[in-house]
């Protein structure tokens, strides 16, 4: 997040096409829209306040999910028990 949210006249306060924009932003965040260049994204976010906010909120949510929900520790004996069972059916 290189830019601070500012409410100067630079940014539109209402997005012209929320549906299309938000769908595009979410695709970009999910890595589905690889053709969308960084420049286009930057330009878009610098001009539209709702898009800017949506993008950064969605990005923050993805980050906390990834960082805080993947640390389930696997029971130590599980891998061995699987290997043992495989040996048995071989």
């Amino acid at each position, binding site marked *: 997040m290189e830019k601070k949210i500012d409410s100067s006249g630079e940014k539109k306060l209402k997005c012209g096409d929320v549906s299309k924009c938000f769908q595009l932003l*979410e*695709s970009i965040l999910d*890595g589905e829209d690889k053709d969308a260049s960084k420049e286009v994204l930057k330009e878009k976010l610098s001009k539209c306040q709702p898009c800017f906010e949506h993008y950064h909120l969605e990005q923050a949510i993805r980050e906390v*999910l990834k960082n805080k929900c993947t640390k389930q520790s696997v029971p130590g004996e599980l891998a061995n028990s*699987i290997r043992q069972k*495989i040996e048995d*059916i071989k």
Partner: protein
Amino acid sequence: MSEVQKKKYSDKEKNNIFDHEFMPHIDSMYNFAFRLTFDEDDAKDLVQDTYLKAYRFINSFEQGTNAKAWLFRILKNSFINEYRKKSKQPSKVDYQEVETYYNSDSVDYNITSDLRIDAVKDMLGDEISNALNSLAVDFRTVIILCDLEGFTYEEMAKILDIPIGTVRSRLHRARNLLKEKLHSYAKNMGYDTEEE
């Protein structure tokens, strides 16, 4: 997957695939299983069953394709067929309630959230985890696959046997539901959720 398979791999190749392509995903598999079942023993059984099936049907695995997606698909199917019935999942009523809500590909993107970024960033692991766990299983699943495991929409479509359009819309709805949960946590944490 049929019981009658042509023998594609030698025993040595089988072991090699199993050790180098299947076993490295055990952490992700267990995390997925635990978030589906909410029970350590059920999660262990589910992961173990998945690996046994994977070994049994190893000849239908194409080397060079995505082993993790292949394993996740087996795990998801095992869960639906064997565990969903007995685990403490939302009742049928809950399920049907969401079903009409999500079984269309058109999504309203106009719902904006007044959840604030700094509130999200300050969420504790337990809060975000509880919010995720509180979602109905189909919504929870797409978030796990996409955000925790990094699958593409196309891989998710294959794992879940649904069209890509449905993946996209279900994911969007799942995130909106998650935001609602997080928003109420944020309020409880004392975050001012009004505009500055």
